[in-house]
């Protein structure tokens, strides 16, 4: 990511600019989405993405192919946490031992077909967004990378530096929490 200086001698500046336009610009929407979900608001997201794009431009010569969106989002994620640490140090969640969080929620003992699915489908955007915002940070991050940014399990695992199994269980846990909230499952007797 930071290996620009040597590479820049090979690719001249115009080619780097063209590459930046090709690799970075098409994914700004995704970058804003991720930054917004990590920082919590839209205005901060633009600052974070701009910062990330500066880093991306500096490191564009080091982009070795692969999925440009995943590459950019990795930079955006790092920039988001840097920004959060600087501006809202108290809100940083310690991502320490997540073993207890990584247990998959037990499957619900619902005996009916899909009233919950119907409830979830009817949930309005505000309710869905609020439910995502309330997720613990590691779950929210995984869910956003998968369901909003559309990255694969493998790409998310590489970005977060965790095994794919951990990605899967965090995702299942995040969705379990959302379904509980949106599907009204908590009103049912246990």
């Amino acid at each position, binding site marked *: 990511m930071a290996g620009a200086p040597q590479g820049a001698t090979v690719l001249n500046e115009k080619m*780097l600019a063209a590459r930046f336009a090709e690799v970075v610009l098409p994914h700004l929407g995704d970058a804003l989405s991720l930054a917004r979900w990590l920082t919590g608001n839209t205005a901060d997201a633009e600052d974070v993405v701009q910062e990330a794009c500066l880093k991306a431009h500096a490191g564009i010569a080091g982009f070795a192919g692969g999925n440009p969106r995943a590459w950019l989002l990795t930079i955006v994620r790092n920039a988001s946490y840097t920004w959060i640490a600087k501006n809202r140090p108290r809100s940083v969640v310690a991502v320490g031992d997540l073993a207890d969080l990584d247990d998959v929620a037990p499957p619900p003992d619902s005996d009916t077909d899909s009233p919950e699915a119907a409830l979830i489908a009817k949930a309005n955007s505000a309710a869905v967004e609020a439910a995502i915002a309330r997720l613990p940070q590691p779950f929210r991050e995984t869910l956003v990378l998968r369901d909003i940014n559309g990255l694969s399990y493998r790409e998310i695992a590489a970005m977060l530096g965790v095994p794919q199994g951990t990605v899967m269980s965090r995702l299942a846990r995040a969705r379990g929490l959302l*379904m509980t909230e949106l599907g009204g499952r908590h009103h049912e007797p246990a």
Partner: protein
Amino acid sequence: MSPHENRPREDGLPQDPQDMTLMIHALVDGELDAAAALAVERRIAADPELAAEHARLVALRDAVASLPRPTVSDAFLARIAAIAEVKGAGEGDVTQPAAMTAEPQQSSQQQQGNVIAMRPRGVRWFNSFDWRQMAASIALTAVLASGATQWLTTADNGAESFAVAVANGHRRSLLAATPVDIVSSDRHTVKPWLDGRIGVSPAAPDMAKDGYALLGGRVEVIGDRPMPALVYRHHEHLITLVAAPRQNDVKSVPVADDLSAGGFLLVHWTDDAFSYWAISDAERPALDDFVARFRAAVIANPAAGSPG
């Protein structure tokens, strides 16, 4: 609990209910290969609890996917694009949002001829951040560009070399991690996927009841033309069905024609819209039976196809 609880399972899926839940997530996320997807779909079909979980997950995925996305304002885009331009050749205009939509693209076209040539000039990079549109427009350009070549029909041996190409594609698919690009037994998933990629999709009936389960679809490139291909499973054999949109001068083959190429058996026939090539390592009777049932299914529901 599930009625299958005490029966040994032969589908290779996890026994543990929590792990099985993860498999359903993976199915919804399109992370399973064709064989595993098929096995999970069967489990779901047999188990109402799993089916309910699957329905909830699909509903949730759709709800999250339909959330409003932050918009990339022209001003913000100009700010970001300026990052590259300031350090570049110093062409002015970087603060003019309107200019941004055209200028960098033209300079990049000069620089990267090969890549950009695939793209129509008017692709709206800056307003459209949906990769599906990008992919569709690239594929569409490929179709338009190949119209001039008429690879299929020029020579007398066109059918023969086409059969070899189909056989090679089938062989490659058997070696690949997964024989399909889009996994689904649901034609309502496969058809839009193919339409989105290459603008053409044949009828894709699932004939699981007849012993031919639809596994999914992929895009085959034969000659230089992308074509839709459907993949069916019959016992342990895979059947690839390539549907080439018919061109005017393609010989009509209303009666199925038995061929072979590359060690595989083929059946070739045409209807009004498509020129079909079915290929498999299955026995000839099974392949003929598949073709007969497929043709019957298409005739029963002709509206399902959409020749490009």
